[in-house]
């Protein structure tokens, strides 16, 4: 194997840093633990074999989630840059992949903030249960004022625009403070607060009448489901989307670590912390859902089945339609609601910061800007687009469409290209394994290289092809082809075009002006 060594040149550029290992770990956990942990995992597990889903879930965690997480860490730490800079330091033409990851973060950031705005509103509504008995009608009618809107540009909705603007102002201020004073300090407060708030919620839910029926529904194994490819695909997708991997976040975060840093062991802590939160969410959410079916005197599976009265148990529907019903019925519902929507807000906001840090880091590296300037230049236009696109009557279908395509096409595409590029085209996997093992207490070798280079691209490639075929054969969620083509495929195509265009812009500092550490021992890596 040939290993090219980046040219050693002037002393390293000044780069922002975490205050230490704890700051990095708490921020990485803040990024990984997001809305998906609370509103996606429990429903996915229930629909894909219940307790038996834990088997493909753990297999996916070990064979794809943790290996790609380590790859992100190695790339960011060895090449000390946001995705564009890190990939530029590996190969000139690879810079475009970095900008593609930045653009994916742009699209995710603009709709993710809108969901946080909804959560902030519902946090406030929960104190007097403003949604009333018709929670679906309240969300779509009184709050989002959809009026049957099917996408595109529509009139602004004041109740959404207000909290959305507040979310953006807060995010811009925190980003402007930089990695240590802004992102790290926020996570240091928000993540312990999240664990306490959600922990109280879970304990309360576990003591609700009928809670055991929900836990039974979540963990009752259907081993026959393991023979279905869809279950394995769901497990790989859940792990992949949950860990914030392969679209620049973990890569960017690890680039702010000190040179002499343990990389893999903190990665294990982050990965298991993320999954632990998912298990905790499963217990809490399903206990609360079972309380409703118990009160109705209907078995859980029937109550939340296709013809049941329970409503949806995943995503926006779970959080903003089904859960308010639970809050209406349970004793102490106002506090329970505040804990639930407060947890969504904390989990989502720390993830939003990590998404924005990828963009900010890319701009800082390329244009040599300060964190404050990057925060303003990225934050203000993104806030405007966020309001225009998702603070309107058509916010829900727009959001659902962009979310589907950027996540399930954009991120998975980014992951497949990244592992193929690093492991097969540029053949840097051996160098990165050596980098991880030289600095870390948990060593990696050929097994990691095999998982990253073979298992991950096969699993993710299959998911990508399957998703693209599905999206081309039938309109997602019954939306119009115009909306899907413009907002869905449009977001992916704009990301590709913008990624190529950014590569044409000149770097303000020589991107190759850095000293790799540890210096590569070519003999050892052979």
């Amino acid at each position, binding site marked *: 194997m040939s290993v090219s060594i980046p040219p050693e040149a002037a002393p390293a550029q000044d780069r922002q840093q975490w205050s230490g290992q704890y700051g990095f770990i708490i921020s990485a956990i803040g990024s990984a633990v997001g809305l998906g942990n609370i509103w996606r995992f429990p429903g996915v597990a229930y629909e894909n074999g219940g307790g038996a889903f834990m088997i493909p879930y753990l297999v996916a965690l070990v064979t794809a989630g943790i290996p790609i997480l380590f790859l992100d860490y190695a790339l960011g730490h060895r090449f000390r840059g946001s995705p564009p800079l890190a990939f530029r330091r590996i190969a000139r033409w690879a810079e475009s992949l970095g900008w593609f990851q930045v653009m994916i973060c742009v699209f995710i950031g603009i709709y993710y903030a809108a969901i946080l705005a909804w959560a902030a509103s519902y946090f406030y509504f929960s104190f007097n249960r403003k949604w009333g008995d018709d929670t679906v009608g309240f969300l779509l009618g009184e709050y989002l004022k959809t009026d049957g809107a099917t996408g595109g540009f529509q009139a602004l909705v004041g109740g959404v625009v207000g909290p959305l603007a507040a979310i953006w102002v807060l995010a811009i201020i925190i980003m402007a403070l930089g990695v240590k004073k802004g992102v790290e300090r926020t996570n240091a407060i928000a993540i312990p607060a999240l664990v306490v708030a959600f922990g109280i919620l879970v304990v309360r839910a576990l003591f609700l009448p009928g809670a055991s029926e929900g836990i039974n529904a979540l963990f009752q194994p259907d081993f026959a489901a393991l023979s279905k490819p869809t279950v394995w695909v769901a497990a790989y997708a859940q792990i992949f989307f949950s860990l914030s991997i392969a679209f620049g976040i973990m890569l960017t975060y690890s680039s702010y670590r000190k040179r002499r840093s343990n990389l893999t062991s903190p990665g*294990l802590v982050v990965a298991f912390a993320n999954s632990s939160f998912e298990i905790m969410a499963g217990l809490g959410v399903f206990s609360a859902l079972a309380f409703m079916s118990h009160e109705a005197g209907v078995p859980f599976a029937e109550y939340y089945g296709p013809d049941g009265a329970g409503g949806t148990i995943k995503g926006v529907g779970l959080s903003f339609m089904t859960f308010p019903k639970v809050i209406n019925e349970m004793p102490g519902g106002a506090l329970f609601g505040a804990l639930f929507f407060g947890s969504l807000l904390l989990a989502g906001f720390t993830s939003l910061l990590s998404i924005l840090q990828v963009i900010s880091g890319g701009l800082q590296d390329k244009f040599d800007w300060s964190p404050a300037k990057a925060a303003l230049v990225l934050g203000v236009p993104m806030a405007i687009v966020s309001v225009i696109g998702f603070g309107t009557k058509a916010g829900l279908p727009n959001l659902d469409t962009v979310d589907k395509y950027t996540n399930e096409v954009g991120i998975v595409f980014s992951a497949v290209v990244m592992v193929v590029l690093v492991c097969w085209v540029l053949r840097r996997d051996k160098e990165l394994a050596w980098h991880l093992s030289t600095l870390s207490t948990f060593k990696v070798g050929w097994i990691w290289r095999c998982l990253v280079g073979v298992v991950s691209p096969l699993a993710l490639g299959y998911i990508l092809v399957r998703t693209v075929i599905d999206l081309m054969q039938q309109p997602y969620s019954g939306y119009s082809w115009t909306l899907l083509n413009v907002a869905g495929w449009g977001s992916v195509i704009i990301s590709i075009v913008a990624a190529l265009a950014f590569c044409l812009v000149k770097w303000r500092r020589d991107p190759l002006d850095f000293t790799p550490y540890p210096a590569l021992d070519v003999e050892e890596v052979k």
Partner: protein
Amino acid sequence: MGVSAIIMMVVALAIIPGGLIASTIFLARRPELDGYPALPDGVSD
């Protein structure tokens, strides 16, 4: 709750939060700074 559901829940709790505890303990065994390769001249952490 069914026995099989309890078993799967215990297994999940043992492996995942157990993995978090184990990895946190393992993290404490981090190398001393002296154990790292020397920093190049003019390069700080």
